[in-house]
């Protein structure tokens, strides 16, 4: 078969990509505080320890508040931007979109310090609110990328048809556009949620005393005996992420199919 070499290479590459994640559950259930082979027995104690750690539970609560707020805010900003770029031609479009998409390539630490400096200068106190500010900024380009493809597969004449049949622009948005892009909106919400849930640097700089989950995890890395617990936590997070992404991907594809478009690939 042609491309056999490529296929073997691709499988090796997937192994490289998945190897670290595959180790997570192995050591999460391993009955030893040392992370090394050979394994020493099965245990679920690391998982049960998670539920007793109050600072962890607090961090989870902070992270959830941040992630939910960010997913809603970033998706709203994404809807505005995606609608504007796919539907209208206007001056400075490229420049403005370039600025909005800039966080995709800007190192997070630069965003974190610049926001920190300004907030400190204004005398604002750091909390999960300031984390929400930063996370919304970095999640928005991703939501735009997803929503763009949802809005792009909308035929402009569908809107015109609705207007032509007597609907106002507002009711057209509700009756035609919203139902057709809804799958994109859902997948955008989920993606923004997982980006925020996972983000460390901005959270570390801007959370003050209200640590989010990644900030908590990073702090635990200093304690070697905490490693198995982190493994257990990581296993849960990975499962959660995969579930969220699968749902997001499902909705993204359904959205494209619903609007009669053609699937052109992944999230980015």
């Amino acid at each position, binding site marked *: 078969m042609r491309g056999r070499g490529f296929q073997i290479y691709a499988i090796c590459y997937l192994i490289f990509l998945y190897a670290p994640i595959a180790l997570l559950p192995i050591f999460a259930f391993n009955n030893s505080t040392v992370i090394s082979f050979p394994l020493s027995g099965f245990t679920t104690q690391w998982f049960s320890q998670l539920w007793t750690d109050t600072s962890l539970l607090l961090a989870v609560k902070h992270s959830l508040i941040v992630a939910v707020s960010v997913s809603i805010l970033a998706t709203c900003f994404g809807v505005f931007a995606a609608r504007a770029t796919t539907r209208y031609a206007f001056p400075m479009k490229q420049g403005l979109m370039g600025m909005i998409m800039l966080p995709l390539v800007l190192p997070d630490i630069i965003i974190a310090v610049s926001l920190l400096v300004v907030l400190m200068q204004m005398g604002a106190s750091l909390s999960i609110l300031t984390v929400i500010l930063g996370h919304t900024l970095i999640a928005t380009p991703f939501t735009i990328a997803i929503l763009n493809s949802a809005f792009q597969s909308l035929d402009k004449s569908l809107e015109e*048809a*609705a207007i*032509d049949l*007597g*609907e106002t622009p507002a009711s057209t948005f509700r009756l035609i556009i919203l139902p*057709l892009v809804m799958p994109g909106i859902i997948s955008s919400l989920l993606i923004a949620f997982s980006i925020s849930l996972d983000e460390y640097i901005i959270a570390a700089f801007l959370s003050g005393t209200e640590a989010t989950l990644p900030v908590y995890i990073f702090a635990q890395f200093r304690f070697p005996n905490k490693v198995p617990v982190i493994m257990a936590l990581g296993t849960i997070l990975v499962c959660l992420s995969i579930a969220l992404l699968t749902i997001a991907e499902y909705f993204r594809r359904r959205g494209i199919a619903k609007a009669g478009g053609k699937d052109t690939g992944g999230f980015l």
Partner: protein
Amino acid sequence: MTSSPAPAARLARPLIELREVEKYYGDYYALRKITTDIREGEFFSLLGPSGCGKTTLLRCIAGFEDISGGHLAIDGKDMEDVPANKRPTNMVFQSYAIFPHLTVEENVGFGLRRDPSSKEDKARRVAEALEMVGLKGFGKRAAHALSGGQRQRVALARALILKPRVLLLDEPLSALDKKMREQMQSELRKLQRQVGITFILVTHDQEEALIMSDRIAVMFEGEIAQLDSPERLYRRPISRKVAEFIGIMNFLPAQVLSTGPQIALDVAGLGQIGIDAEQCPGTPRTGEASVGFRPETMTVLYDGDPEPTRGKVAQGTVEEVVYFGDMSYYEVRLEGVEKPVQISMRNVVGRPVLPRGSRTRIAWEAGALVLFCEPKG
């Protein structure tokens, strides 16, 4: 809508009045001072090559584009501040714009949402509209499961159910295959007579426009070059450009010797002749001009054929002949003319196709000629 007036009265009244309508984007003019009337109940076509402004004009009437200058009135009411959703027009889109998330029924009934009538009444009207376009029993189908022709019918039903004063059709048949297109052409024509609504059709297909329309506006570069019935448009095109766009026309260089009720001409290959002033759709001028005729207005004569009683005869050589079954297409070089002229002949039993290189006589009738006095270039 209100009950329609008697047909005679309806034909007389302009339904849409366009007065110096302009549309420009920056310094690009899509429409230049278009002034015309579209009558109540007529099948009106906008015909032209792509980029001529025909779709822009349609979208201006629908209200999807604001006009940059001039006035547009429908039913005597100025449309300047009337948005698309408040205009008595409905549109069949080129892509049909069938809402993919709704069923056929929901698509057809979409415009009835704001109608105060009862649910049963609406359902009945949807069923009637579907029956009218030949989609009885398709109501519960998902829109994305329809074929091209069916989508077209849904789009029609959806627009007609609102009983608009004007139905706008934006190249509605261009996405269909040839057979389906021909079928829909005759169905659309019948439907228009049946409902009596004014149809405005945008098309780049001259044959389609000729078949379907009461009147055709031929557009070039944002202007209406000629507005006429299909027959006049074909027989008396106003310019060489219109003539070339509609069907095939042969041109011969000519000299206008004198003007008046009778125009005296010297036509290359045909000799000195006189034609009626009516045969010059523009303004006759003496000097250089050209004369046009359609391929079917000339006859290739066989040896032994008698001279025609009314027409005249010219000499020529068959350069090329293409056999089409029912028809034969000849390219004949007339004496003294460089470019061969095209002549189409109906094939008749007992008269074989003339071979290439045959010397032949061409019978023609002065009444079939059209004189173009426009300056060259």
